[in-house]
């Protein structure tokens, strides 16, 4: 993707921030701005200046924790948290291979929901570690996992749980509608 001529999907995000006046209230309100490579205000500027490649490869939106401070305070009333989420969705196709850890987590989370209807936390983390392919990652959570197991708060992964109902039909219908729109 070249940096000019935003493709259709990114145009829809640009439309969400079209009325941005670059005041920077979002940046000043963002608890995660310190960890971002571009501030939220700069991200909107990239979209408005038709630099979609810069926007979609920025780490800004993947560091959004949905605290909604920017949305609450934006003097133009723009849905900025929703715009961050929209970019995260687009990154899956527009920046394949980027943000592997986050994408792996979201993917396994929803897979757990599709299979069981509800999230199985230990199964989610196990499959997340496998998909993220980072051999050190599990150790960071080993202590917490053991505490949870001891307190009987999580089940061992893949142990058959009480009858659960999957949501295959709903997931299929959503996919069908989204591929045809």
């Amino acid at each position, binding site marked *: 993707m070249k940096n000019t001529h935003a493709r259709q999907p990114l145009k829809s995000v640009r439309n969400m921030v079209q009325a941005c006046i670059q005041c920077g209230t979002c940046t000043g309100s963002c608890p995660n701005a310190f960890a971002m490579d571009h501030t939220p205000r700069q991200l909107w500027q990239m979209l408005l200046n038709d630099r979609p490649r810069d926007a979609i490869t920025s780490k800004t939106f*993947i560091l959004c924790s949905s605290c*909604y*401070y920017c949305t609450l305070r934006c003097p133009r009333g723009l849905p900025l948290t929703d715009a961050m989420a929209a970019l995260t969705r687009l990154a899956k196709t527009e920046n394949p291979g980027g943000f592997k850890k*986050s994408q792996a987590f979201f*993917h396994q989370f*929803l897979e757990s929901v599709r299979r069981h209807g509800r999230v199985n936390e230990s199964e989610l983390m196990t499959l997340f570690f496998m998909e993220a392919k980072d051999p050190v990652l599990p150790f960071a959570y080993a202590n917490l996992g053991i505490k949870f197991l001891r307190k009987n708060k999580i089940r061992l992964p893949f142990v058959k749980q009480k009858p659960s109902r999957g*949501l295959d039909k*709903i997931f299929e*219908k959503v996919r069908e509608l989204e591929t045809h729109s």
Partner: protein
Amino acid sequence: MKYFYYPGCSLEGTAREYNLSTLSLMNALGAELIEIEDWTCCGASAAHSLSELLAWVLPARVLALAEKMNRERKKPLDILVPCSACYLNLKKVSETCRTDTGLLEKINTVLAVEGLFLENRLIVRHLLDVLTRDIDISDIKQNVQKFFTGFSVAPYYGCQCLRPYAVFDDPERPESMEPLIRAAGAAVHPWKMGGRCCGAAHMTTHPETGRALVAAILAGARGSDMIVTVCPMCQMNLEGFQKKIAKTGPGISETTILYLPQFLGMALGLPESAVRTDLNLCITPGFRKKYQPLTAKPLSGAQPSA
């Protein structure tokens, strides 16, 4: 008082004590909770990161199930949700569909595969909203058995029960928990971190960033006896990584983290086995020592403020 009850996935697992203490407290306050049958996940923060439509449909399914149960009732019941992330997902679909009929139609196209239909008639309420607006504070004051005299409690609201929908509290300077804390005989810890973000899922996907946010909250709670929370994700972030975070810098000491209904339940004299403090990850020896001698009367003649 009756409500439909949506516990959500965390409250069946890592946040079991939030579920059990909510049930115990609401029972003690005379409220009946009717669990939504066959409920499923609200999509959490994962669904909107992968599919916009799925992020609408998953919470809509829960609302449709509650409506189905409501059809046999004369008076509509509100839906009580203790988890802030679940609350916002349910609230968001309900609020958005009020004006966006196209979206409601699309959601119903999907729900039809399970024979469900959403009219969007019920109101979604956070546990804190119900505790502060439906429960008479004097009911709590009059029934306090254990006055937390001499305790300083830091109220932690987090984000999603406050923003973007300002329903029951000031989304910038929240204070709805303060009368509850004072009613229990404790003092409110003065701080500005109550509505700040704990980093949500960052602790998993961007741990360094998540730890920095939690460190600021724990540092702000210095001098208090405990932080009380109203969200399973906030609770896990605040209690689960304290040792690691303490290593990152000075000014952070081990802090007791309780769910609000655990704290209020204890004040109302519920046994710890009912509010399940055995399941918490961080209750400090200092807290235990101070809590043990609490009697039915305020200590040293001090009256609970407010």
